[in-house]
């Protein structure tokens, strides 16, 4: 508030902040709560007393717990890791890579940091704490019941790692293809004021509104019988498209295209057209201008659009559950199967652990790319 006239009275500011705090509670509570449930034994996770769920006496009774010392050291390690990644890592990467290849340095750096963190957190730290805990008396006694057994069940026994791999394949494919196709189209649409461009955008808008089940109803019979009708073209080894990840990638890319081209178009419109005109005057054709002049400055828009493509592919339930067979199933449909089984409370807590595993990457995504996500949300809106 810059001006004196617009300054708000204390009472109003206080109320406003209280409401804001309440909203934050509402926004975060369900997510935090399932994260807490996922590390408790079933008895604790479904206890009707909130304190029992948080402290987990039944979990503690089975011998799984954390002492005050564990918690303090654990937080210290996480904080230290965060500090190293945000402060030391960028400098190191700058030092060891030549300009233009920073991205490679980042990939290696992040991987190394991740592996080092996992090693320290899950191997070194427990070993050290095993020695330290008995020495510290009351501080070393377990107070908080925490168990990782449900995560073990999900990832090892239920084969969730296979679903994770499938999710990775599908999302990576969708992001790569839809950005490649979408950037070209977005650029073309932004630089052409023709009626045709307008019609393409308008039809894309209609396509964006289509329920996905309508489209899947169109794909299913064609995909299931594809070996038959592809046989004249591809001969004997014509594939059945049903159940194949690449078919789902193509479908999700197409479903995502309307959104992608609208968003990238609005980003390209913010890049001044004089830039490529100058390049054209210097003798580039359109493709060279795009390659040499536009590509270096378009990354913020592309990263934002890529994030939203990632979210669409990663979060999709309808298309993947109908078009993929059990062995190529991605994570989200897999968890629906787990939840519907619903035989025992243990199964349910296992499903909770699976759910938390699915949303954990998204959490980090928001943390790292918050600014890009916000700019993406507002990009479409600026045009009104």
């Amino acid at each position, binding site marked *: 508030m810059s001006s004196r006239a*617009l300054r708000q009275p204390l009472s109003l500011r206080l109320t406003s902040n209280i409401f804001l705090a309440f909203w934050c509670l509402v926004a975060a509570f369900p997510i935090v709560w399932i994260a807490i449930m996922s590390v408790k034994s079933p008895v604790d996770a*479904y206890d009707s007393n909130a304190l029992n769920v948080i402290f987990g006496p039944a979990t503690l009774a089975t011998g799984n717990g954390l002492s005050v010392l564990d918690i303090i050291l654990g937080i210290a390690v996480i904080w230290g890791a965060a500090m190293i990644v945000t402060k030391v890592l960028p400098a190191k990467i700058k030092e060891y890579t030549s300009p233009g290849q920073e991205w490679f340095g980042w990939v290696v750096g992040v991987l190394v940091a991740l592996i080092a963190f996992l090693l320290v957190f899950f191997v070194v730290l427990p070993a050290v704490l095993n020695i330290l805990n008995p020495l510290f008396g009351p501080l070393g006694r377990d107070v908080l019941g925490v168990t990782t057994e449900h995560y073990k069940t999900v990832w090892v026994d239920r084969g969730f790692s296979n679903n994770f791999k499938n999710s990775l394949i599908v999302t990576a494919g969708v992001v790569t293809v839809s950005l490649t196709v*979408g950037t*070209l189209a977005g650029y073309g649409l932004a*630089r052409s004021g023709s009626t045709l461009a307008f019609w393409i955008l308008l039809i894309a808008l209609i396509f964006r509104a289509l*329920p996905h089940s309508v489209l899947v109803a169109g794909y299913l019979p064609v995909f299931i019988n594809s070996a038959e009708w592809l046989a004249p073209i591809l001969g004997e080894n014509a594939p059945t498209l049903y159940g194949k990840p690449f078919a789902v990638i193509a479908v999700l890319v197409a479903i995502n295209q309307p959104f992608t081209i609208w968003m990238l178009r609005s980003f390209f419109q913010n890049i001044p057209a004089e830039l490529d005109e100058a390049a054209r005057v210097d003798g580039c054709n359109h493709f060279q201008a795009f390659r040499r002049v536009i590509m270096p400055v378009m990354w913020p828009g592309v990263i934002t659009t890529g994030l939203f493509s990632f979210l669409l592919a990663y979060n999709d339930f309808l298309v993947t559950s109908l078009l993929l067979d059990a062995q190529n199933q991605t994570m989200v449909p897999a968890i629906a199967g787990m939840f519907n089984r619903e035989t025992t409370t243990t199964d349910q807590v296992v499903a909770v652990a699976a*759910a938390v595993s699915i949303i954990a990457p998204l959490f980090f995504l928001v943390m790292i790319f918050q600014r890009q996500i916000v700019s993406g949300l507002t990009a479409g809106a600026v045009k009104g």
Partner: protein
Amino acid sequence: MNFRTFAAFVGPSVFMMLLFIAFPLVSVFKQSFYITQPVYETVEVETCTPGFLTQTCVTELKSQPKLDEHGEVITRTEYVGLQSYRNVLEPERAWRAITEGNWSVLSTINFWKALRFTLTFTLITLPLVIGFGLGIAVLINNAAGSIRGPVIFISLLPFIITPVIGALSINWLFRGDGILTALLEWWLNRDIALFAQAWTIEILMMFYRVWHVAPFAAVVFYAGLQTVNQDSLESAVIDGATRWQRMKYIVIPHLMPLIIFVSMIHLMDAYRVFEEIVGFSSQAYVISLQWLTFDFLVPDQAGNRSISRASASAMLTMIGIVLLLILPLRRTWRDHKGGH
């Protein structure tokens, strides 16, 4: 940019959209008039059971699917006209229910039940999303600069997480003796079963949707609030306008294009409501139009998918989309005309 360059840039994208969006639409339209089913033949089967002296034999006519030389079921596709639509809509029963004013009968027909829920859901969540979005945006705008970042981070979480998981997480809080149900029971001092009747599930679903979409609206409106002209706000204060009047006459008109934008997006998305049904496993009580199509597409116990009924219900869903989009599309068209 001449046409050839434009086509080269836009070509791949348009090709993908034609192949995977336009073509399926046409094929769904066609499928909805045809039905593919196994060819049945009637065979005489003699079953004999051993008995005293002679065995008892019964001859009966059985109809069974015909098999080809590879042992696969022969299917035949035939034109049935509007039969699939009739199967989905059940017009006679629906009409009788309407004329008799008997709404409970109407809601036993899946399509009408789904339509009723989809429309209620869309229309009720719309004002809530806009209202809460605006409220949160104003609150964030009021807060000190240093806490805005973390608050936006927390606000984005409900928007970014997988819809099915989001719905599940709220489901888990209330399901059975979930923590919030326990709290409600303690507070109201009575037994509560939130998943035993349709209306409570519907309220939870709407709550989930508002929780999921309000952050999006809030971020968009918050960005809009940054561009409100401070001078006009200040002169309004000098003219003696109250806070409410400033909000009503300056801020809201300024945000109007954004409000329309968010409403449009929300209408499109809420009409496709689907993940809630899965996340709350509410199919026994509440279903939506998109879930209806999905359900026809899921193989039943015999492994058959009712493709033609799915196509018919998909086409009926489409009609709703068209009605929804006519007004905004006319506006875009007029803007385009005006712009050139």
